[in-house]
């Protein structure tokens, strides 16, 4: 079962375009949408939320078509934008009063609990809040209507490390229910990559991969070795190579092949998602 199905999305802008992006967000799991700035993560999320109309392709959210004019399917979504989208001259209490009636499942007790947990003063005006507080407020609002799907665009931007950890805890608690799904986008992969079940990687508007995180991490391997081992044929085996005066570091997307090719002559390491992102993005830049 998939919570979201993105099918062949294309969207052209002046400076870049999303070309034929297809992926699924499985129900009951956490999916991370990763990629550098400008990869198209926000555009995809906006298309899912009906903010942006794709030129081509279709999106299904929880079994409903996510057409741009539609609203119903958003009932089940807790959306957290990368910037504050609220009327910032209102207090957090006033803003909540505007939002709550739109959601039949609104849970006022839960809302009050989150506000207390996040130490957010209800009377404070949104414009007087720090970036972190605004993000916490958005999270409190999103969780208080008990959504089946949580969509977060760069949720950790502007958050201090302490709250980032607390957020991980909250998300893990939310996903204890196997009927719930989380999709988040981020360009800082380190803090969320631990809890993500699936990873979808976009670069320059194109899908690089969409797979289980464990599968991805097992497929890739980081190789470190002496420069004399590198020639053009060898280079072609890698996703990306970083050469220095004292050796090279390279990412391979075929662990088995690489190990049988180099044997014991190089050092192997488990790459992080950040390593995978770095080498892929770097190589794509060189090719342009």
């Amino acid at each position: 079962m998939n919570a979201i199905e993105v099918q062949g999305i294309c969207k052209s802008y002046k400076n870049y375009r999303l070309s034929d992006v297809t992926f699924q967000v499985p129900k009951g799991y956490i999916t991370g949408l990763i990629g550098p700035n400008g990869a198209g993560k926000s555009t995809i999320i906006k298309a899912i939320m009906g903010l942006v109309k794709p030129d081509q392709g279709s999106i299904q959210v929880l079994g409903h078509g996510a057409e741009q004019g539609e609203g119903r399917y958003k009932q089940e979504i807790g959306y957290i934008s990368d910037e504050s989208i609220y009327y910032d001259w209102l207090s957090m209490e006033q803003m909540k009063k505007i939002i709550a009636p739109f959601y039949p499942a609104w849970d006022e007790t839960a809302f009050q609990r989150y506000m207390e947990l996040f130490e957010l003063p209800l009377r404070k005006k949104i414009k007087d809040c720090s970036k972190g507080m605004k993000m916490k407020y958005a999270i409190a609002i999103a969780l208080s209507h008990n959504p089946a799907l949580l969509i977060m665009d760069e949720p950790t931007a502007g958050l201090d490390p302490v709250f980032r950890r607390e957020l991980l805890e909250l998300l893990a608690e939310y996903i204890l229910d196997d009927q719930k799904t989380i999709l988040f986008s981020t360009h800082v992969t380190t803090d969320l990559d631990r809890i993500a079940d699936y990873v979808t990687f976009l670069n320059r508007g194109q899908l690089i991969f969409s797979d289980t995180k464990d599968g991805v991490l097992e497929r890739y391997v980081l190789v470190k070795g002496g420069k004399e081992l590198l020639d053009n044929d060898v280079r072609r085996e890698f996703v990306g190579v970083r050469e220095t005066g004292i050796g090279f570091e390279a990412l391979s997307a075929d662990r088995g092949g690489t190990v049988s090719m180099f044997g014991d002559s190089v050092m192997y390491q488990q790459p992080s998602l950040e390593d995978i992102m770095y080498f892929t993005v770097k190589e794509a830049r060189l090719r342009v």
Partner: protein
Amino acid sequence: MSEILNLVRKDFILQRRYIWIIALYVIGFSGLFMNSNLNMLYGLLPGMMLILVVSSDMRQANQQFLVTLPVKRSRLVLSKYVTSILFVLLALATCSIVNMGMSLYHSHSASIDYTMLLASLISVLVLMSIYLPLYYWLGIHGGQYLNVAMMMLVMLGNGAVSGIASEYDFTNMSTWLNSHPVGSIALGVSSLLLIIVISYLISVRIFKGRDL
């Protein structure tokens, strides 16, 4: 239906911050302190309210907020028309009360300048029917210029409307009106409604195609 109510309620919450400005304006031009003519109320207040209502969620971020609510885009547009009309009516009701109060104060008989009221209502609703599609079409950045243009139009139109209302030779028209009371009212109301409905449909079409 309840979502329209919720959206209208939202607009009322948002307008609270202007309530003092409006109150001061009304008191200022009521004629209590200076010899003001009613053009400043009938002519300007409804237009001003209209602009305030529309521009309260003009920012792109706020448009995004509205679209992420579980409401169809067409309903968002509809609610904007409903609130606009409500606020125009509210403004005219305020004007009428002031008008009545002042005439009671000056001549000891409560009367309302119906010609003014009607001229103002019709012109503001026509204005709204042009303003809202433009607002959805121009979007956030153009919207600010649109507001300035609107404000100027309201000011200029104010003179024109009151000019027409006071100087136009109504004799022929009122004779015609008197001979066909039902027909003329029906014609007037239905053409006004038609204009608003067409305006709404255009706004929906524009807003549905807009990326935020």
